[in-house]
């Protein structure tokens, strides 16, 4: 057991890669290739569940750490570890992967082997991003996700796939260069790529010239992550990438790749540059809130369903960024939860859209209408997932959204109020979309004979539906481990958080009248008197 615990991260990260390498030597029998890919992804999932099983809840800091020197010059370590935040992002990745294999079962008919090789390589890279604690290693995995994803879009996409792939690649690649520069600067001054070491040195003020460079370093990381999230106004690669990507690509893009951006913001921007994060929070939050509202409004009027859902990601990820930069326990807990829940809901939405696409080869809303009649089961799944995305309480979306909004409100009431309009917008775009796709009479004759979803498709949807429900009903299963990790991450912000967190609770004996004056001001602020 000790051996497994000591090496489990390596195992989880490289199992898919090993599978991919084996797959490369496979004969081109598509059926076997699919089964093998499914098996590899399932084994990886099982292996990753080991992480949750032996994870010590309530303990902050990294667990399952592996730290061995890798390259002496430059001083690169093979340093991995998970805390309550990254743990669940790893699980999210391994959980979505088998479903992605299932969903690609029939829709990928050409160059099947390459497809699954790319998928497995991508999985390794994604998990690597979440567990790497060495900045060089992190950057390596970060860039490594780019290539397979761009290839998946470019080779297996549809329509303007080349344009979309190039746009995706250029956008993220160029932005990453700034992060690389920041990493190299840090290495030049600290002699280490190690996240924990660098963090310690920054905190104790041992990095020379840090004060002048801090803003630029912060921005270097920020640009890379903001593009990935994507934050308004650098979000325009996302709709194109989604619309042209194959279904599995979209699921992983929305489900996991975007979270690499928000994860990066939380881990590195907050972790390494708390002072800068605090200073820059106002405009970042402004962008996040613009993203929430703007993304929702633009989503609402899209004539293409997949583009519509893509824009909802801009809106939902805006919540995550808002939560992170609220620097409150509630807000950041909520942001992490929202990352997971968005992966489930939006991943499921893209899978559902893929099922329509398999049948009709179009995403145009005008091509649909009345689908609930020929495809009742499909319509029911869709409604359920839609509700989870709308943030219906007892489903996953609500928990994160509520915590983020509440945290943002604690930080500054205006943030919470503006962002909370999101609850109205999300109902608008999703319900309207749902009505146009499913309700009414069948408008196109082709649609009247569409077959409902089959067993394979159900199998790929049920886990997500169940996850959405469990995450809504019993969020403590996750929050138990997220909460300590977040409070550790927020330690450096204690000055900020303490002020914002629950004054009444901490001082239950507070007298009425003096507080009253203070509250009166707050109240007036809210009602605009």
């Amino acid at each position, binding site marked *: 057991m000790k051996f497994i615990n000591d090496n489990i991260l390596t195992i989880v990260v490289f199992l898919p890669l090993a599978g991919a390498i084996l797959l490369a030597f496979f004969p081109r029998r598509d059926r076997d290739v699919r089964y093998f890919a499914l098996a590899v992804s399932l084994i990886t999932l099982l292996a990753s569940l080991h992480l949750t099983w032996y994870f010590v809840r309530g303990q902050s800091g990294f667990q399952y750490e592996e730290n061995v020197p890798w390259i002496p010059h*430059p001083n690169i370590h093979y340093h991995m570890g998970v805390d309550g935040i990254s743990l669940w992002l790893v699980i999210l990745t391994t959980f979505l992967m088998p479903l992605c294999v299932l969903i690609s079962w029939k829709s990928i008919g050409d160059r099947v082997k390459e497809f699954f090789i790319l998928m497995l390589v991508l999985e390794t890279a994604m998990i690597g991003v979440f567990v790497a604690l060495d900045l060089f290693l992190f950057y390596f995995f970060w*860039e490594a996700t780019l*290539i397979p994803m761009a*290839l998946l879009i*470019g*080779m297996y996409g549809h329509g303007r796939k080349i344009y979309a*792939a*190039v746009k995706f*690649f250029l*956008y993220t*690649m160029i932005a990453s260069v700034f992060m690389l520069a920041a990493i*190299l600067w840090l290495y*030049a001054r600290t002699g280490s790529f190690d996240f924990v070491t660098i963090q310690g040195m920054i905190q104790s003020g041992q990095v020379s010239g840090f004060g002048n460079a801090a803003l630029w370093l912060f921005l270097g990381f920020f640009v890379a992550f903001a593009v990935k999230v994507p934050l308004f106004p650098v979000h*325009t690669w996302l709709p194109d990438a989604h619309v042209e990507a194959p279904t599995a690509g979209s699921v992983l893009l929305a489900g996991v790749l975007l979270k690499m951006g928000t994860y990066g913001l939380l881990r590195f921007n907050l972790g390494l540059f708390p002072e800068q994060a605090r200073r820059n929070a106002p405009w970042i939050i402004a962008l996040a809130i613009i993203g929430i509202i*703007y993304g929702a*409004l*633009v989503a*609402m009027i*899209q004539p293409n369903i997949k583009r519509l859902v893509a824009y909802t990601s801009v809106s939902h990820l805006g919540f995550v960024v808002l939560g992170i930069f609220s620097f409150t*326990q509630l807000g950041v807990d909520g942001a992490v939860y929202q990352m997971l829940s968005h992966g489930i809901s939006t991943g499921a939405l893209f899978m559902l859209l893929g099922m329509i696409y398999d049948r009709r080869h179009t995403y145009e809303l005008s091509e649909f209408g*009345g689908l609930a*009649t020929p495809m009742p089961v499909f319509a029911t799944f869709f409604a359920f997932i839609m*509700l989870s995305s709308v943030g*219906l*309480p*007892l489903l996953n979306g*609500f928990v994160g959204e509520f915590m983020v909004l*509440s945290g943002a*409100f604690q930080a500054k*009431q205006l943030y919470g109020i503006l962002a*909370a*309009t999101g*609850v*109205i917008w999300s*109902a608008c775009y999703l*319900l*309207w979309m749902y*009505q146009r796709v*499913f*309700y*009414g*009479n069948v408008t196109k004759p082709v649609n009247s004979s569409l077959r409902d979803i089959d067993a394979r498709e159900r199998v790929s949807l049920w886990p997500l539906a169940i996850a959405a429900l469990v995450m809504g009903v019993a*969020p*403590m299963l996750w*929050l138990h481990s997220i*909460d300590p990790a*977040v*409070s550790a991450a927020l330690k450096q912000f204690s000055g900020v958080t303490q002020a914002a*967190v*629950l004054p*009444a*609770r901490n001082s*239950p004996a507070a007298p009425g*009248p003096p507080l009253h004056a203070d*509250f009166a001001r*707050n*109240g*007036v602020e*809210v*009602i605009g008197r």
Partner: protein
Amino acid sequence: MSMHLWIIPLLPLAGAAVNGLLGKRFPRALVNAIALGFTAAPFAMALWVAAQFAGLSPDQIPHIERYATWLSAGAFSAEYGMYLDQLSVIMMLVVTGVGFLIHVYSVGYMEHEGGYYRYFAYLNIFMFFMLTLVLANNYLLMFVGWEGVGLASYLLIGFWFLKKSAADAGKKAFITNRVGDFGFLIALFLLIKHFGTLQYDSLWPLISRYPVETGAAGLLTAIGLLMLVGATGKSAQIPLYVWLPDAMEGPTPVSALIHAATMVTAGVYMVARSHLVFNRAPDAQMAVAVIGTLTAIFAASIGIVQTDIKKVLAYSTISQLGYMFMACGVLDYVGGIFHLMTHAFFKALLFLAAGSVIHGLGGEQDMRHMGGLRKYLPYTFWSMTIATFAIAGLPPFAGFFSKDRILWSAWSSGYHVLWLVGVITAGMTSFYMFRLWFLTFFGKYRGPNPETVAHGHDADAQHAGHTGAVQDAKDAHAAAGSHGHRSPHESPWVMVVPLMILALLSLVGGWAGVPHSLHGSDRFGTFLSPAFNEASATPGAAAATPAEAKPESEDNSTELAFSSISVGLAALGFLAAWWLYYKRPELPERMAKAAGGLYTLLLDKYKIDELYGAVIIQPLILLSTNVFWKGIDQGLIDRAVDGSATDAREASDAMRHMQSGNIRSYAGWVAVGAAAVIAFMVWRGVR
């Protein structure tokens, strides 16, 4: 001692799960048995709980049960738990009792419908959320029920989703409610920010420490007003009432249960539950009273001219909810809840009876095509009569006692203008309800000639175009024609019995609250008022208690005089309706012509929907399409991005690979380039 209150909401949820997942394969009898069984059981249990509750000593009330933590972060946490006091006991009994009756009725009403299991699954889900709403022991769990009933409402309004108007109405209801929820959420955020909790039992003592915000509006005023925003959405008050009339697209039993008896009263419940906040926030409380009163008269005025029987009832519901808000606004929470209860009886009955009429006429809802139905539907007629008298506020029916109590509270707490508007509304209510009564049941039958139009032609026309698996049963009903619609017919027993029970309740339901001025003992008030007693919610708190101490047993004669005024107005309404719609039925049309613009304005519901559409919805869509998407996204950002990419392409030969579309080689080059840069910088830049 635990009463295992969690079982009450979970039973209907179980029913919904079974019917929803498996019901498609079940025979109807089994679907019925499950749906009814899983609503009868919670009703029975609610009765048992009420009996247990009666045995609790005052210091054991409220009875709180905690089961588990739902979510917690840092110092904040919300739990799964139940809160039983006098208020939730009454709500629980009303919801389970009326809910069960309406389930029974639905068995008959929906008999010919496709998607039968779906209907009952939704209805059971509604019961689950509604019971969660009223039994929750914290605001967050209340919010779960709050949103959940909205979902059930959405699903049930859009039950006949093949019809565009139904799907539209469902969507409108959900989105309008979301606007209200936005306010509610902000109120919760304020509570969390300042008190750190949403648990009732932790909140009440904290809130009690605050003085009444007489001088300047403060925190509690803000919270109260935001809660009011939420309540206007759920309880269909100005300005968010617009969804409720459209919600009549749903099956009629749904209108009875959700859009009359229970869900729409959630806002009233919420305000009553938050009485500690409103007691301390005179401005918020004033806003509640004014909005309620305005809504009452505004909706009544629209109700006067509507011709669709369900639309009249819908506006009447909005108007009656206005009374409940008026009561809460003048701090007579007991009166508000009392009216909530009696209204649940008689309005559910009115809807169910209207449903019986519609059912008997094969889908006809236009009162201009009814008339003389008294002899075809005798049971329906008699129960409808009791309900009409009850809502008109004539003694000794239930509505009289509750409405009168509210009006008296308004007057006696000094809100004379509100009282005046309320009394006028009472007269209007009586008028439009008796108008409905006369138009429907008296005179000659004005429907299609039974000889020529054999098979409920109107039903076919109305639901034209319904095809597919989820057939609107009224088609099937009409087309099958086995027992046809040669003439209007009385509904089956399964529908009539609930009518009778509700008729009984509409008659005697008010007797529980006979005021002292009429030599009653007001048992209802005696039972419920401790729930709104400051001290009981907050033991040991010496908080200010505004306007709570009402002088008892004096002014009896004044109260009686005021009662006679409202009864007089109600009688006047009856006479007017009798004159116009029975004695001289040709008059109304002439009057409508004479009134011209005013009449059209009322008929068009003051064109509020059109106003919202032109001022909010259209501009939003145009803004999103032309400015945000086509302007900023595609015009500005993408052109900049593409532009720089194009320049780069033109400038560089190597980049031509991209043009050739060979993504792999391009990606490869970038990767190689990146690796080279890294290698170089690492080698060069460091040490």
